[in-house]
């Protein structure tokens, strides 16, 4: 994965916080996926302006951890695979 890429949520999908579910969710035609709290923290930083490197740096700082990079990359791969994300041109 090229960490200089800038991901954005693909047009079919929407990511939003749900009070009742108490988590971030991915919405798509007639369906919903609930995100774990770490996945939610990654997805909320996807905005079409922030690169993957910057997202990782922000997460490291916020959660004072240097060991989360592999997990973030792993999740982003899943998110791209599911079509939730695409690279901003």
């Amino acid at each position, binding site marked *: 994965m090229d960490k200089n890429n800038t991901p954005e949520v693909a*047009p*079919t999908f*929407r990511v*939003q916080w*749900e*009070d*009742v*579910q*108490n988590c971030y*969710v991915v*919405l*798509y*035609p*007639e*369906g*919903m996926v609930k995100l774990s709290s770490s996945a939610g923290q990654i997805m909320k930083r996807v905005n079409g302006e922030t690169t993957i490197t910057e997202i990782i740096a922000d997460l490291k700082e916020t959660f004072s951890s240097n060991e989360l990079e592999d997990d973030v990359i792993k999740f982003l791969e899943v998110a791209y695979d599911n079509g939730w994300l695409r690279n901003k041109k």
Partner: protein
Amino acid sequence: MTTAGSETKNDITPPLWLLAELTYKCPLQCPYCSNPVEIAKYQNELSTKDWVRVMQQARKMGATQLGFSGGEPLVRQDLEELIQEARHLGYYTNLITSGVGMDEERVKRFKDAGLDHIQISFQASNEELNNFIGGTKSFQHKKEMARIVKEYEYPMVLNIVIHRKNIDQIRDILEMTVELNADYVELASTQYYGWSRINVDQLLPTREQLANAEKIAKEYQEKMKGRSKIIYVIPDYFENRPKPCMNGWGAIFLTIAPDGTALPCHEAGQLPIEFPNVRDFSIPEIWNDSPGFNHFRGFEWMVEPCRSCPEKTKDFGGCRCQAFMLTGDARNADPVCDKSPHHKSLIDDVERINELAVDEAAKKVEEKPLIFRNMKNSKSYLEEV
């Protein structure tokens, strides 16, 4: 699951899916329509204000998906207004339409209002059969609308209801969805409720047809991987275990009929159960407290073989409406289940229709005409009952 401050009571999960059947008026007359055969009874449609209130209350309880359906939802002149309100409330908004009554101007207005997704139905892959099944000249217009939907960057689901009259064209149908760049394709096997139940002798495919269709659907699922998601489920009459209908009664689905009747699924109106109306009760009252929505919650209502069945937590005994239609008692196991004492008579009936289909194809017997879904046929049905 409950959350502090939520509007849902203990042990009752919040509604996630709100299906807004805005009207039963429709320019199409598909003989497998899932609307009740009694559509002519539903004259008193909810106002814009009623719908806004329903959407607000359901959203507050946690509903995220909203389907604008019908009939044909485009018939409602306030559709744009309702979409705008729904999107503002935070729903993922789905428009489930035939495409008839849509033009580019309206698609643009939907986009401005914040509509998330459009699902267009096709009746077949060729003009003649499409227009015959739908009872209107609509094929070319649908194709044009599909192109416009993609042009406006909507995710596009193409929905084709599959039955004996079009199942042999499944390859052409799939080719058409490829040509139209569908993101999702739902090859929706006819489910035998409402109008399609009346027409089941003419619509149920044969085992041979199903096997062939399944092979072709698999081929395209492989071929289109990553470009288009193709969903194909065989009719449950050919299964040995029932579907976990609606993921359980009053668990996630909330349907509101055009006249405001609240239902746990869009077929439930046929059951001998009294269902509340949104004109009389709020959505939390309906969802949490009404006898109708609590009728088949949990497992206490079950009779054997479901009651002692270890699979009851997985499929909830199947579909209550199917149990009612095929056994006369909605508490019974869905006869699709081979543990049901009524399973054999369902299999026998499938076999009878299979033979009928073979005889018809060989011109040994004359085909019975389809009963089309329209107000006239609904009225004569109501007079007969």
